[in-house]
């Protein structure tokens, strides 16, 4: 049976929980960052353990396997060099045409990208967030786009001095204005992913006459003011009419593998 002190304890916990839940947004964010910073001493330990695991994995790879991988990477590198040369030429041509038509010059991303390491993932199964090792001292602020090799990963949600929380594409708190690269250039909003498969994300609010085909590229549209236009997101897998034919909904396979991210790039303003 519960006694009087027990009822007092119950009352105090309930009161405290309600108090914390009803704190203003800014105070909650600060408190969250302050409590999260208790884990700071353990971050080094985690990265050390991960490096150790990586090294142990390296030891298990045979010499012939390494040579084969090296050869394949060399070929890939040569292909990328050729593509880069082609891209440089296209960028120069783009600049010339822009000057000709007196359009504003677009900023290049290359100099604005900052590499960050993923240090923590969301322990709750119902959110898609992660924490990176860059914070406000590195020039980060909220809503900056985060990219990986394949394409868009998400955006910065909250920033502390030394680390930041990133909401990934597919999380209910990360909506992305997207454009399908087809003849009609259909635009929609990237919504939620499934709870299990993080690679498939819904693209909603497309026109009901959208000319969607599997394999079409999906990129950021630049609308919404957070993500610049043209960042690759993924490819259309399938589509269907939603809400009694009011709009079209498509499933998009993300280019970036969100489940195995170790390093990401933050696009600075």
């Amino acid at each position, binding site marked *: 049976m519960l006694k009087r002190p027990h009822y007092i304890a119950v009352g105090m916990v309930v009161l405290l929980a309600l108090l914390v*839940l009803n704190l203003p947004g800014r105070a909650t964010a600060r408190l969250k960052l302050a409590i999260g910073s208790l884990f700071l001493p353990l971050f080094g330990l985690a990265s050390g353990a991960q490096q150790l695991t990586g090294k142990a994995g390296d030891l298990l790879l045979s010499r012939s396997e390494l040579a084969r991988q090296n050869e394949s990477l060399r070929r890939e590198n040569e292909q990328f060099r050729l593509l880069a040369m082609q891209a440089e030429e296209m960028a120069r041509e783009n600049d010339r045409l822009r000057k000709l038509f007196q359009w504003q010059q677009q900023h290049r991303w290359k100099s604005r990208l900052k590499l960050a390491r993923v240090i923590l993932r969301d322990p*709750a199964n119902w959110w898609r967030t992660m924490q990176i090792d860059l914070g406000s001292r590195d020039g980060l602020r909220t809503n900056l786009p985060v990219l990986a090799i394949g394409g868009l990963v998400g955006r910065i949600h909250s920033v502390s001095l030394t680390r930041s929380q990133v909401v990934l594409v597919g999380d209910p708190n990360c909506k992305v204005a997207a454009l399908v690269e087809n003849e009609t250039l259909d635009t929609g909003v990237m919504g939620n992913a499934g709870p299990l498969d993080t690679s498939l994300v819904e693209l909603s609010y497309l026109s009901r006459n959208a000319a969607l085909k599997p394999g079409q590229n999906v990129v950021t549209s630049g609308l919404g003011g957070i993500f610049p236009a043209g960042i690759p997101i993924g490819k259309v897998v399938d589509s269907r009419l939603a809400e009694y034919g009011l709009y079209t909904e498509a499933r998009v396979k993300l280019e970036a593998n969100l489940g195995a991210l170790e390093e990401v790039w933050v696009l600075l303003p």
Partner: protein
Amino acid sequence: MIAFRTLLILLAAFLAVFWEAAFPGTSRWLHVQVDLLPPLIVYASLNTGMRTVALLGVFGGLLFDSLSANPLGVTILPLFIVGLAIYWRRELILRDQPYAQFVLGLGASAAAPLLTVVLLLTVGHPPLLGWGSLWQWLVMSLAGAIATPLFFLIFGWCERVLGHVPVIETSFRPDREIRRGRS
């Protein structure tokens, strides 16, 4: 002894939350991250006082929410409610039996995420839910059930190794020993 046990449990909660966030573990293969706080609260409610249960609910909940996208404080109440329910009826539970620990762990690990999701929906932060969530719920419950007897074993060992053993007074006194035979 009680303070030592409380400290040990809070330290375990701290490390458990960090492990869940830092090491993907099961989430890479099963797409589910196991939650170790419900098994901990089962141990705390069966072996410690109400103060420790309340402390674990608050401390564990705040730590978990600080690394998650949950609104801060949302995990406190589900953890505490689960702990309180077990604490309330703990005199009727065979706490030393691994089977009982397994069943309690299963119930606690099933109830805590459910209550958290209900609370999230109530406070207007709808999480990512779907049919796959059922799979996640099943795996979390089972993993919590398996972890509970393990926590009992680990804490039992820690207390034996690190805690002091209370001196048991016996009725034996050498000056009152009955000596038999001729002397």
